[in-house]
């Protein structure tokens, strides 16, 4: 099922406003994509086409950049994105058990979104908080020193 939240997309006027903020410079593409995604929740086909024509560059180029970086998404995601680090420092301190606890608690596999559109669960690159590994990030909030027992308690704050 498609998540409902924030998937309505973005209106062309808003895209145009963001492009104007960067003087329609193609070299500001990464910043533009950040702004559009922040507004719309993800980068829809319509938004990508709109950006391409506004900057007068090929759609393929915008799509290429949008899919190169892991923080950008061309599909709608949940209201809360749970990013789980499974790089070596977190792995050594038990990230696998955290992944299992999250999957069990939310009833979705890694990469999935809950049917109510509330949570998306995905892997991330190192979050740079290895001193408190294992760690996850929920939208912009970081949680460290995790144990499987703490997972339901943290999720409760968002449910």
């Amino acid at each position: 099922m498609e998540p409902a939240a924030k998937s309505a997309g973005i209106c062309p006027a808003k895209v145009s406003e963001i492009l104007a903020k960067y003087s329609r410079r193609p070299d500001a593409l990464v910043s533009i994509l950040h702004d559009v995604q922040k507004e719309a929740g993800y980068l829809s086909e319509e938004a990508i086409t709109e950006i391409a024509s506004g900057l007068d560059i090929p759609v393929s180029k915008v799509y290429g950049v949008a899919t190169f970086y892991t923080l950008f998404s061309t599909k709608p995601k949940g209201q809360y994105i749970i990013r789980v680090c499974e790089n070596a420092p977190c792995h050594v301190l038990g990230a696998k058990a955290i992944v299992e606890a999250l999957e069990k608690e939310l009833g979705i596999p890694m990469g999935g979104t809950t049917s109510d559109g509330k949570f998306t669960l995905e892997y991330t690159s190192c979050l740079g908080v290895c001193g408190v590994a294992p760690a996850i990030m929920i939208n912009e909030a970081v949680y460290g020193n995790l144990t499987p027992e703490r997972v339901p308690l943290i999720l409760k704050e968002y449910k």
Partner: protein
Amino acid sequence: MLEGCKGVRDALIAEVKRRGLDREVKVVETGCLGPCDLGPVILVYPEGTLYQKVRVSDVPEIVEQHLLKGRVVTRLVGEAPQAGVVKYEEPTYLGVQERIVLRNCGVIDPESIEEYIARDGYRALAKCLTEMKPADVIEAVKKSGLVGRGGAAFPTGLKWSFTAKADADQKYILCNADEGEPGTFKDRLILEGDPHSILEGMAIAGYAVGADKGFIYVRGEYVLSIERLGKAIEQAKALGLLGSNIFGSGFSFDVEIRKGAGAYVCGEETGLIESIEGKRGEPRIKPPYPGTEGLYGKPTVVNNVETIANIPPILLNGPDWFRQFGTERCPGTKVFTLTGDINNKGLIEVPMGITLRRVIYEIGGGIPGGREFKMAQTGGTSGGCLPKELLDVPMDYFTLPEHGSALGSGALLIMDDSHCIVDIAECFMRFFEHESCGKCTPCREGTARLHEIVAKIARGEGKPGDLELLDELGSVMQVSSLCGLGQAAPVPIKTMLKYFRDEFEAHINDRLCPTGTCGI
């Protein structure tokens, strides 16, 4: 900042106010103090009492007892070495640490330019602009022996001299804050704890090479770093320490922040440049090097955050002062991040050339749970794994490569004897397969095959010849990959094969894990 910490901060501010102490006691949100695993920590000045693992419920007691009545809450100061209180700046706590890069972290309010200036901030820039010629600045950096702290260890002064010599109408200074090496978080904590030191260092670099524009490329995930850098830039501009005609010298310098979007390969300097230009962050073919042809095709200096943080103290105190730290071949200090199976995790700064043994047992407090040390990975996931026989090797940019490893970004991942080599190797190789940008074949295909072979061995499906194949494939990648990512990806696996080959062989030949932990 972790979620738990925000609660303690808010509670402390509220409680101080409720008790009417807000005119006498200033609550300052400072940069990292180092001991991450003891957090949240509160440091009370003037005497420097360090409270650790503070909970919101502890806050009223600290305010009532300590701030109001002057009695230290001893149950929150941890295991004091003597009967007294752990004082932050006492040698017992800092041990063998030397703080050059982290000189202000945890000491000043990073959001206050006045506090930075009070600690000699912007004095090095003033000295350069008013007393030194650009060539003298480069000469001083060359003489200091400073080499790049991002991992490649290229001599900083020499790098600057290439750009200084280049004839161009526009030059750039880029600060590489795209810290993505797993296990590394030093740049984040420098940016959060002392953002002005980076602006000052970049301006000095700009003066030295003739650049009037700088960019800081920060990981998109580093929300607080971006916020504090933004404030710092505004403050510096307001005081005329950035902008046009700084100190009336005629030299102008501006800095802008660029936010990354999640790509490990953008830590590679030409990948980073591509990303700032609004493209996929795929590394360029070198030469030409950025020093002569970088951002928008113009001569560009790309330096790591830690490298730049070293610049103001070197210029202020002179190269000879800097050379008294560290070793002859590799002067200065190194910021390390301690992670994994170690009692004291966190951020430390120590003289270059210190041994792994001293870091683990003197500063790190040893291995938890009474377990044995098995190996340490130096330099992040792209670094090598060292066994206990190499605990006494000096850690610097020249000695570690002699043992097949690298100092890299300074990440130290400590692993105890409960870990299976093959399981860890699979974790490393999965990372590189994911992060390869796909531009060049040796890396794109090589990282995928390395992961595939190791995963097979981990599932108990390895066959004779697999280890030789890993070795050979790794060697090909090291010589033929376009950038450091593909060249470094085989480093961990090669050192593991060198020092722990019998464990791989047990998985292949006997279908058995000697540690009994990987589930084969």
